[in-house]
C-alpha cells in the first residue's frame, strides 16, 4: 500500500497538458510538405452516381489530386465489419460491400464520393466545389418502421425489405407459456432516439509514406490503434502490419464513435502512398454530424407478464434497430448481443425472449455510443417496470425489490446468456433511497406545486455488462477476433517503470490510474511510473478502449505482467540474499527473507537485473526485468446500482428541469475515486442529454439531417444540470485479479430511464403513462395537451 496507490484520489497526470493547452492531437501534428484533403460528400440521402467530372477541379490552383471510386476500385477493399451476427434462421447477416468512396450509389447524406488533395485546405475546398457529380436522386427512407414496409425504397438490390438480420435471444416457447398463464400483462411502446456522439475533437487523420522503406505511418483519432492497423492496413489496403504504424496521440473523446474504422482513414493512408507526401484530413463539425457513426435509434414493443404479487414471470421484447446505410465496424452487434442479453437487469425474470430486426436506412450508420445497447435495454426494462407498477397499483421500489436477484443467489445464470458473478442490489438501493431522500419526496412535491411546478421522482435499479470481453464467448457471438488486453512492464535499470498498455486513453485517465495500480503493487510512488499507449510501434498488440474495459481487462493485464515481474524479482532476490525462493516475500517495496530483516529493495533488484553481479546465475536466470502479459477475461463484469432523479416541469411551457440526481454504483474495486466520480458525472450527463435534449432528426421525405449543427442539435450544458451526487457501494468482481468492474458507461446506462421515470411520475396527475425521449419542452407541452386527464389535473 502506497499513499498514491489503489483507492487514492490522485489528481490526473494528464491534466497538466490538457488544462494548459499542451495536448498533442492529430491536428497539432505537422509533417514537412504535408498536403490537405477534403471529402466531397453526397448532398442526397439516396442517389445513383451517373458520372463524376473532376477536370475543372484538377485545374484549380493548388489542387494535387482528385480521387473517386473509380481510382480505388481495385486498390482499396471495402470498410470491414469486425463483428458479424447470425439470424434466428441460422444464416449470417446481410453484409453488402461498403466501398471507401461512393460507388454506383450513395446511401446517406454525407456519404463520401470524392477526395480532393491540395497544397492548402482552402485550395482543397475550392477544388471540391469544382467536382461535378451527376446524381439520379432516388426515394429515400430514414425510419425503421417505414424501411421494412413492403414497397419501401431498397438500399441494396439483394437485401429484401432492408433487413440486415432478424436476430433473437432467449426461449420463445417458455416465454409464451409464461404469458399464457400470467395474472397481468403490461404493454409498452418505446422509441429510443438517435444520437450524435459529438466528441469534442472531431475525427482527424494524417498519413505519411517513406518510399525507401515502404513504411507508412498513420496518425489518427481512434480508440483502437492496433485494431485499426489490422482493419485499415491489412484488410482494406493490403499493407502488412509491420509496414504500418498507427499512432493515436491525444484523442479528445470518442464515446464509441472512434472505435469505428472509417473510409477517410484508409483514403488518407493510400493517398500518402500514391502522392509520396504526407496527407492530412481534419473533419469539421458539420462533417462530423454527417459522417461519425451515430447511436441508438430503436423502435420497440415490450410486454411484461406478472403474477398477482408483482413477480415478473416473463419479458417479451420486439425491437426494430436502425443501422443506417452501411454495416459499420461493430454496428450490428450493438442492438443485438449488447442489448438482448441485458434485459434480465437486476431481476429474476425466469423467461425472456427478445427479437431484433436490424434494418438498413438512408441515414448515417449507427455503431457503439457510450453504453452501446445497454442503455437501450435498461430503458425498456426500467420503463416497463414503472408502467407495470402503475397498472398494478404497486410501489415502484417494492416491485423492484420483490424481483431482485438476492445477494446469496450469485453466481446467477440469466435466461439470456449472461452469468452474473456478484452483486448486492438491496445495498445499492438502500443507499440510493437514503441519499436521494426518497421517503420525504412528498414534501418537495407539495412545495413545488405551490410554485406551479409538477415535481416527479424516478428510480432505476440496473445491471450492465462490461469489461469487454471474454474472447471465447465473443467469438461464439460473432466477433471476428479476440477481445483480450495486453501489457508490457519495463523496469528500467535505475528502478523506475514504463508501462506499455494496449488500451487507449482518450480522456479516461489511464496514465494516472495505471500508475496507481502498478505503484501500489510495486510499493513505489506513482510518480515513478510512466504509461505509454496509443502507438502500435511501442505497445504490444492491444484491443483498445471501449465497453468500460480498460481498468477491468487492461488493468488486469497490467496486474498479471507486474506479477511476472515480482516472480522474477523474487528469484533474483533469493539468489542475492542466499535464501530459498519460497522464503522470499515482497512487501512495502522490498523483497525480504521471511522472518528476518535481510532485504533488498525493488530498486536494488532492478539494478542487479541489469548489472548482474559476478555471482548472478546467468545460466539459469536471464538478466533484465521486463515482462509482457495478455489477459483474457473469463466473464464480463457486471456493474450495478441505483439511480434516482427528480425533475420539475413547468406545465405552462413544458420545460423540464432536472433538479436532483443521485447515483449509487457498484463498480467493484475503486482504483481512483475522483476518476470514478468524474466518469459517473460524464456518463450521467450524456444520458440526461438523451433524456431531455439530444435528438438526431432526419427529414423523412428527403433524408436530410435537420439537426445538423449545434444550432439544432441540443447538447446538455452545465446550467442544465444540478449537482450530481455520486457514491459507490461496491462488491469486488470475483473473476479478475483486481476486482474492478468498470465505471465508464454506468451513468449513461442508468440515467435516461431514471430521468424519464421521473418525468412520467411528474405528469402522472394528467393520466400520462409514457413519454418518449427527449422530453423537450414542445413534446411535454403536446403530451399534456393530449393527456386524458388534462382538465382534472388543471
Amino acid at each position, binding site marked *: 500500500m502506497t499513499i498514491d496507490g489503489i483507492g487514492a484520489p490522485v489528481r490526473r497526470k494528464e491534466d497538466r497538458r490538457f488544462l494548459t493547452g499542451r495536448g498533442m492531437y492529430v491536428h497539432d501534428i505537422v509533417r514537412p510538405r504535408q498536403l490537405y484533403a477534403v471529402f466531397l460528400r453526397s448532398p442526397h440521402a439516396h442517389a445513383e452516381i451517373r458520372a463524376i467530372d473532376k477536370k475543372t477541379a484538377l485545374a484549380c490552383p493548388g489542387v494535387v489530386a482528385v480521387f473517386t471510386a473509380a481510382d480505388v476500385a481495385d486498390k482499396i477493399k471495402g470498410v470491414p465489419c469486425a463483428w458479424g451476427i447470425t439470424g434466428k434462421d441460422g444464416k449470417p447477416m446481410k453484409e453488402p460491400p461498403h466501398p471507401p468512396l461512393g460507388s454506383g450509389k450513395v446511401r446517406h447524406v454525407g456519404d463520401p464520393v470524392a477526395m480532393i488533395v491540395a497544397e492548402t485546405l*482552402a485550395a482543397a*475546398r475550392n477544388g471540391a*466545389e469544382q467536382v461535378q457529380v451527376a446524381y439520379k436522386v432516388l426515394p429515400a427512407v430514414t425510419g425503421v418502421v417505414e424501411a421494412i414496409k413492403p414497397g419501401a425504397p431498397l438500399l441494396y438490390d439483394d437485401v429484401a425489405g432492408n433487413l440486415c438480420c432478424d436476430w433473437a435471444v432467449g426461449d420463445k416457447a417458455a416465454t409464451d407459456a409464461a404469458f399464457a398463464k400470467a395474472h397481468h400483462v403490461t404493454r409498452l411502446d418505446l422509441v429510443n432516439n438517435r444520437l450524435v456522439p459529438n466528441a469534442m475533437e472531431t475525427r482527424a487523420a494524417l498519413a505519411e509514406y517513406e518510399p525507401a522503406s515502404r513504411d507508412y505511418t498513420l496518425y489518427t483519432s481512434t480508440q483502437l490503434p492496433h485494431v485499426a492497423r489490422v482493419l485499415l492496413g491489412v484488410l482494406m489496403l493490403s499493407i502488412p502490419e509491420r509496414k504500418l504504424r498507427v499512432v493515436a496521440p491525444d484523442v479528445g473523446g470518442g464515446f464509441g464513435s472512434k472505435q469505428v474504422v472509417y473510409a477517410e482513414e484508409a483514403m488518407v493512408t493510400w493517398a500518402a502512398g500514391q502522392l509520396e507526401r504526407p496527407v492530412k484530413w481534419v473533419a469539421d463539425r*458539420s462533417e462530423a454530424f454527417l459522417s461519425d457513426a451515430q447511436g441508438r435509434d430503436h423502435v420497440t414493443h415490450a410486454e411484461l407478464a406478472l403474477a398477482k404479487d408483482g413477480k415478473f414471470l416473463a419479458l417479451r421484447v420486439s425491437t426494430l434497430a436502425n443501422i443506417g446505410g452501411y454495416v459499420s465496424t461493430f454496428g450490428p452487434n450493438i442492438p443485438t448481443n449488447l442489448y438482448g442479453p441485458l434485459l434480465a437487469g437486476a431481476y429474476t425474470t425466469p423467461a425472456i425472449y427478445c427479437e431484433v430486426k436490424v434494418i438498413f436506412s438512408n441515414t448515417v450508420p449507427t455503431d457503439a455510443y457510450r453504453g452501446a445497447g445497454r442503455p437501450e435495454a435498461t430503458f425498456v426494462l426500467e420503463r416497463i417496470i414503472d408502467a407495470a407498477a402503475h397498472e398494478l397499483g404497486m410501489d415502484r421500489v417494492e416491485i423492484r425489490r420483490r424481483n431482485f436477484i438476492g445477494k446469496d443467489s450469485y453466481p446467477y445464470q440469466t435466461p439470456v446468456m449472461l452469468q452474473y458473478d456478484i452483486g448486492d442490489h438491496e445495498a445499492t438501493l438502500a443507499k440510493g433511497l437514503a441519499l436521494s431522500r426518497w421517503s420525504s419526496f412528498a414534501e418537495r412535491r407539495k412545495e413545488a406545486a405551490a410554485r406551479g411546478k409538477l415535481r416527479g421522482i424516478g428510480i432505476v435499479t440496473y445491471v450492465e455488462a462490461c469489461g469487454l470481453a471474454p474472447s471465447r464467448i465473443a467469438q461464439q457471438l460473432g466477433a471476428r477476433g479476440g477481445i483480450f488486453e495486453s501489457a508490457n512492464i519495463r523496469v528500467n535499470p535505475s528502478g523506475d517503470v514504463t508501462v506499455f498498455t494496449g488500451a487507449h486513453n482518450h480522456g479516461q485517465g489511464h496514465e494516472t490510474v495505471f500508475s496507481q495500480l502498478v505503484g501500489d503493487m510495486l510499493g513505489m510512488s506513482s510518480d515513478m511510473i510512466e504509461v505509454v499507449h496509443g502507438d502500435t510501434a511501442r505497445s504490444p498488440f492491444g484491443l483498445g478502449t471501449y465497453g468500460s474495459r480498460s481498468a477491468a481487462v487492461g488493468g488486469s493485464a497490467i496486474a498479471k505482467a507486474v506479477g511476472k515481474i515480482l516472480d522474477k524479482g523474487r528469484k533474483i532476490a533469493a539468489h542475492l540474499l542466499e535464501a530459498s525462493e519460497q522464503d522470499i516475500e515482497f512487501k512495502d517495496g522490498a523483497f525480504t527473507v521471511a522472518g528476518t530483516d535481510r532485504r533488498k529493495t525493488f530498486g536494488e533488484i532492478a539494478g542487479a537485473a541489469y548489472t548482474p553481479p559476478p555471482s548472478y546465475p546467468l545460466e539459469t536466470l536471464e538478466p533484465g526485468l521486463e515482462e509482457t502479459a495478455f489477459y483474457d477475461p473469463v466473464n464480463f463484469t457486471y456493474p450495478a446500482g441505483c439511480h434516482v432523479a427528480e425533475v420539475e416541469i413547468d406545465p*405552462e*411551457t*413544458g420545460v423540464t428541469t432536472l433538479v436532483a440526481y443521485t447515483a449509487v454504483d457498484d463498480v467493484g474495486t475503486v482504483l481512483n475515486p475522483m476518476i470514478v466520480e468524474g466518469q459517473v458525472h460524464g456518463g450521467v450527463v450524456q444520458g440526461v442529454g438523451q433524456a431531455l*435534449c439530444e*435528438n438526431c*432528426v432526419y427529414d423523412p421525405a428527403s433524408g436530410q439531417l*435537420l*439537426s445538423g449543427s*449545434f*444550432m*439544432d*442539435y*441540443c*447538447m446538455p450544458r452545465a446550467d442544465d444540470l444540478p449537482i450530481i451526487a455520486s457514491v459507490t457501494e461496491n462488491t469486488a468482481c470475483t473473476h479478475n485479479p483486481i476486482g474492478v468492474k468498470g465505471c465508464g458507461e454506468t451513468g449513461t446506462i442508468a440515467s435516461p430511464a431514471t430521468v424519464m421515470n421521473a418525468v412520467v411520475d411528474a405528469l402522472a396527475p394528467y393520466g400520462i403513462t409514457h413519454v418518449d425521449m427527449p422530453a*423537450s*419542452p*414542445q413534446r411535454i*407541452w*403536446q403530451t399534456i395537451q393530449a393527456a386524458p386527464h388534462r382538465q382534472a389535473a388543471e
Partner: protein
Amino acid sequence: MYGFAYHRPTSLQQLKHLLGSIEEARLLAGGQTLIPTLKQRLASPDALIDLKGIAGMASIDRAGDAIVVGALATHAAVAGSPLLRKAIPALAGLADGIGDPQVRNRGTLGGSVANNDPAADYPAALVGLGATIVTTERRIAADDFFLRMFETDLEPGEIVTAVSFPIPRRAAYVKFPSPASRYAIVGVFVAETTAGVRVAVTGAGPCVFRLKEAEPALDRSFAPESLAGLHVSAAGLNSDIHAGAPYRAHLTSVIAKRAVQAALA
C-alpha cells in the same frame, strides 16, 4: 472563406466614398453573423468594410427623455452601462442575455438591428420601446423599420449610426430560448411608455411584431391578469423541429404574461 479585400474607414465620409467605389461590399460591425457566413462559404463579397474604425459611434448618452446608444456599442457595453441599467434596466438585461460572453463582447447593436434576424433580441426592444433608428440619412421609427425576415427599411449605402430609446415607466424582456441554440423561440418585450403600453414579440414570427391585441387590456390595467383571455393565433408563425407554430402561439401568450409580471417585479 473566400478571399476578399478589407477596408477600415475612419470616418463616415470615407465610408461613403468606399461604398461608392466598390461593387459588392459587405459592412462588418461585430461580425457575429457575417463572419460565420463567410467561414461557411455562404457569401463571397468582393470586400468587407469594417465600421469599427469610425470614431464616436459606440457612445451611450442621455438626450432628454431618451437614451441614445451608438450603433457600434457592443452588447456587453449596453449590458454594463450604468446609465442604461438605471434608466432602462430591461434593455441592459436583454443585452446581457444575448449569446455568450464572446458574442456580447463582439456583437453590436447596429449590426443586430440592421441584420433583423427573426430570432434576435434587440428588435423586440426597439419595437417595444418605440425607439427611433438614426441613420446616415434620416430617423426611422422602429415600427416602420423592421419589414420582413432579414429585411429592413434601410436603403443601399444607408448606415445605422445610433438608436434612440425613450425611457419607459417600466419595461421587461422575457425570452424563451431554444434549448439548442439559445436564440429566442419567443421573446416578449413589454413597456409602459408615455404613449401607452407596447408589446413586441421576436422569435415567434418571421419578423418582430407588435402584439396589438394585448395592448389595450394592459393600458387599462398593467397586470398579468389582464392577459388571461389572450389568444394568439398560430397563423403565419415560425415552425421548426423545436417549436411548431401552435406551440409558439401558446408560448407567446405565456411569455407575454411573464414579461408583464417581470416588469412589475
